[in-house]
């Protein structure tokens, strides 16, 4: 069975990724193809164009699936400060992704409240990382 694809990225201003996490559940073998990360980053980065195109087309923060490449889909969520949450997946339920984004947004808000946080600074908080991973586990456990 092929391994699932689930990569979450928060993109700050100037297209800088400020948080990256590979949320895919690792299979029995434990060793994933590290090289797939290259494609994932390319697809995620390319999807930013689609996000910017679609973010003004409606009042929703959640944009749904904005871009596709082969069987990879990119779902997006744009905060009011133009920070973009991108999730690369292989066809997850859109509602689940929406819920996941909503919960991550809440956690993210706590990070933003840090007065030393700027939209260009990397999120290095271990607690945030753990929280996002546990959210991913709870939503995308299959």
């Amino acid at each position, binding site marked *: 069975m092929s391994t699932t694809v689930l990569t979450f990225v928060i993109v700050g201003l*100037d297209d*800088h990724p400020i948080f990256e996490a590979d949320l895919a559940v690792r299979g029995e073998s434990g060793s994933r193809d*590290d090289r797939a990360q*290259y494609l994932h980053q*390319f697809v995620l*980065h*390319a999807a930013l*164009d689609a996000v*910017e195109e679609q973010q003004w087309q409606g009042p929703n923060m959640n944009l749904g699936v904005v871009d596709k490449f082969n069987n990879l889909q990119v779902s997006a969520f744009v905060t009011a400060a133009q920070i973009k949450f991108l999730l690369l997946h292989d066809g997850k339920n859109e509602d689940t992704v929406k819920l996941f984004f909503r919960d991550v947004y809440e956690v993210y808000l706590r990070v933003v409240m840090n007065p030393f946080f700027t939209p260009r600074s990397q999120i290095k908080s271990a607690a945030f990382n753990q929280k996002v991973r546990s959210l991913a586990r709870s939503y995308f456990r299959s």
Partner: protein
Amino acid sequence: MEFREWILERLTPAVMVISSQEAEEICQEKNGLTVVDMLRPYGFLHQLSVPVRTVGEHAYRIREFRVRFYKADMMFQPPLEAADEYLKGVLNTAAKESHAVEIPDVMAALQSGKGFLADNTPWWNKYLDEFHRMLSFGELETFDHPVGCLLVMHAHVGNPVEAFGRLFHSARKPPLMAEGKMEHRLVMHHLLIHGDNVQADGGYARSEEKLKAARAALGTAAVHLIRINSGKGDPASVLGYESIWRPPLPGTLPGGGAGEPPSRPPVPPAGYGACLTKANLDDIKRFLEDFAVRALLPAMEARVRALNHQVTSTRKGLRNQLKTLLWRKQPGGLGAAAGRDSPRGSVHGGSVHGGSAAAASANGSAVPYGGGSVEGQMRALADLAFMMQDYDTALSTLRLLASDLRSDKAWKQYAAVQEMIGVSMFMARGTMTDVLGAFKEAFYRYNSAAPHEAQPRECVRYATRAMLLAAEYARQHGACNDANYALMKAHFQEENLRAALLLEQAALCLLRVSPPSVRKYAFHMVLAGLRYNACDQKALGMRAYRQVLSVYKGHSWAFIEEHIHDVLGKQCRDTGNFDAALEHFAAMLNCPHSPPYWQSHYLKQFMDTIAAAGNAKGAVPVLELPLPVVDADHVTVQCDNEICHGNPESRAQPEELWRSLEGPLLSGMDIGVASWLDSGGSSSKVSALQLNTAVAGEMIEVLISLGNPLAVDLQISRLRLMFEPEPMPTDAADLQHYAEVLEQMVVLKGGEQVRLALGLRPLRPGLLTLTGVEWLLNGNAPGHKLFAPKRPRHRRTASRAATKAEQQSQCLSFNILDALPRLEASVDQLLPTMLAGEVRKCTLRLRNTGSVPLRGIRAVSSSPDVYLPPDNADTSGSTLDNLTSGRERAAGASGLQEPGIRLRRGMTLYTWPAAQALGPGQEMQWPLWVHPRDKGQFAFHLAFLSEPEAHVEGMSYRLLRLSHSVDVLPCLHVAAELAASRADLVTFMLKLSMRNMQGLQALTVRQVSCLSEGWRISLLGRRGLHDGTSATPFPPSTSVTPAAELPAATAATAHFRMHPPEAATASRSPGEEWVQAAEGALAHFHSEPTKRLQLEAQPEQQFPTRPSKAELRSAALEPPPEPSTSEANQPSGPDVMVVWSVPDSAGNPRCIGAHHIYDLQEKEKVAIRATLQGEERLRHNFGHGGFCAAALHLELRNCTDAAASLCIETGTGSPSRGEAVWRPSPELAPQSSTAGDSAAAGLSQELPSSSGRSGGAFPVGARSGSEYMWCGSVRTLVTSLPPGRTTRVTLRVVVMAPGEYEISDYLIRWAFPGVDQLQYSQPGPKFVLRVVDGEG
């Protein structure tokens, strides 16, 4: 080219040319052109107005018309492999020219707003044209099928009519025509070519005759004669029309095909068409107009009408539709027989029957619909109508055909029809959705048909063509997203090369979208690059990658940047471009996100390339390596200019402290304080900018941070600073004469971060700038990092931004001065921990490490507890040796110019004689006494000033800063009390309560000295008690040595007698001294606070230096010294110094300390001191006389400074209250201490058990009361007792019986008539009189 134009040029009637060998030779020999080539440029006919009528009622006019000419035997589609091979060749040729095309900076172009619309992919256009050509003459479409046949014969042939017949029958026809798939009934036209170069009988006139004959036989309109080769063929007579032939000359395939012969004739020296004159060309033009208008168009018109008639009769109309419905519903099992009877197969009896279509398609094989089938006819009708520019007819026919083919499930043919529908719809100005929908349908059907075909790739090619048409259409009509979509769709099925080209175009489409989808463009371009690399088109692949580098660079998408640099680096390495390869590999090195395996792999890859580059070129380029991570923005400079720092602690002290210390040093020196007024003359660069000043030969240190972000260890060797002298020497080898650079080596563990100090020693005066740092990574890869350019700012603006010190530490430009002397100082034998009050002698070493002698050393110490003696005699020897009294003290080898000058705030200025020079390398030692008085942190700072012996431009003096700090532990606590002695009128009793505050070791109080002028001290008690000689009181002296031990954490009290100056005897002997107290260091420390008080009272001395703001602020905060006149007049009490020592294990003093008590005042001031003396023991024979009389002498002393009048009243009873009363202070009477030996006389240990002991002096049982009687007057008056004077009054007492009497009931009253009217009184001192009966 515009899409409509392109279609009009591409989908035009084709004419099959059959030419005789001789005719070809006439053309090729002189002109380098085949007959077809010669005719082609004139195939475009414009400015026509030809009325035509196709299927409709009304005629319309054709204004423009193009005819394509092809050699008959070459009208076939080349095989797939040959075509691909040819296309690859085309691309290879074009790719070689790609170097000439500039690689655009996409981001810059987009940001500048110009967009990215310039066509910078010329290879694509070439490839696209050839790709379309390779797909022509297919069997799916008929617009490449010939509509006419042109027979070309040379005019010199004997019988042209026969010759034309022979030629047509013997010529090879297109393969499809031979197979019957191509219409073979064509309109025939004949052309005779007369070559002027051919020597034939009769010349042109003869040819014209032949023309007439031929016209008579074949028809007037069907034969033409043209004349060529009238020119000489020499370059001088060339018309210059070569360019009309050259551009459209298509390439050739080895086996021929796609309308072109396998090879072309050689080009004549004068170029194509060398022998054609203007008249010749006009001939050709006339012929072609005639041919097109009078032969070709009428023939096509007729054919369209004929085909339409057939189609209408078989396919259109209600009856036919019903038939079709019925017949086509039949399953494939009906077979060929059923099909044969169907209306479609019955028209012309084509070799392949249309009815077999359903069955064949069910079997999954291709279904050829022959030219004779009704489908073939419909397709031919549609294509002809299209070429006749009757797009509506074409479209309706195609739609009808499409529905038939759809029901036949002949998907390949259906797809071709859909493709044509798309084109026709476009020409008929249909909507974009319809046009694109048709193309997409075509694409989809081609692809779905592909798996069932014998040659699936052929279908894929057609599918790609459909999408290319769609993309071109969409792109030209502003729908770039659709174009991108179409091209992306097309690329999935294609082989690598075509996929790469498609992806590249798809990417470029995204840049034309508004706003440009740059990121998507970059992604597609990377995919294109991958495909290019996969098909070995390295140049184009690299180009694709290099274009997107600017999009991704600097956005922290680590994996993306890594991939791009990896690919580019490897390609550059393979092409031998090591410099670029190294740059790319270096950019990959900072990859903390990668697993350690890849980190080491990338490192190894980089190192291997470095080695390869070294082998190839001999030298390795120095790169700005990302490893280790150098923090170039936070570089701190440490260099010594006129201010040198002697130790690291001195750098930590605030600048204000040093300013206040250095002020006295600089007093009187011209330190050149510049203002904006006097800077007019020296407007050089050096003065206008704030440069750091450094001295040649002295080290400049730069603190930088290095970090290793990887998990792999890094070995950094030859880590050194880079510098640039100004002016820059022409030869790089000369750099070493400017400065000496110190190299370092460090191994950085994974994740480690270190801060290093790099050194540089300038050797020449001048300007020098530190530019960066360079190193050797892992022993082979040279790297460098430039510091962030921080040019020194202008003085005025800089002063606002940052403090001078901060800015100096940031400024990397130096003004190097010539060699200067440099004073270095150190304090030896200074312990990190001392006891409070300890006196320690350290050694101050002054050394000139410069190369020039220095002189005029001055020093300022910040603390009064640091002392430099006036000469250096005491340099050697221990602290005790130098303090012990009675030693031979030799004069020092050198001395200070004058003893230290005390300054305010405890500072002391020491000046060495100006003539005393310190040569290079010379050292001077000086004793330095340290005496921390209080517990806690004791810090002292020394600032030295020295001047070069010879004047040096730029720096007239240098300052050295030295800072030391000592932890001080508590040691001895002494509390002193002074009280008037009751035994006499002048001396005082001194009580010292001492406590050993340290809990570990005992200390010994070795000496108590009183150094106040005139005051002396002595032990209590008498000496000589032991040896039996007469005990005499200890003589007063300046010092006594009680030698009392004080164990750890205990307290003791000691008493001494103090002799004021009035009582001082002539003896000025210092007495028994353990250490020298009157002079030397101890005396200095003892007298220091007193002198300081005197100094502070004086107005502050003004130094000529400008005080800093901080100094002014602190001065404002300090309360001004009060003019205390009254206090100054008061006589100050004696000062006492207690000297102690802490013995080591052997009992020798380990360290010595002193405790100072200043200005001891009496606890209670006594105005009139009195003693009552007389014979204490009287023997009287009471048997003889009734009473015993005793004379008592009352000594009185006026201790005030005013004359007093006294009155002694006797017999007053107990002292009354309410007046000033003198009470006896608890005083240890000499009698009470008789039991102890002399050593312990003054010191009684205050043990808790003995705390209740009182100092009562009265013998127990002494009677008091009025058992004695006063004799004489009750009042004795002393009218005036001047200050300090003593007087004696004799009182008489009478007792009646033996016994002990306490004489106390008398009162001393006094007044100061000159001062006030008050009266004072006190009871007189008691006296115990012991009367013994003489008889007893």
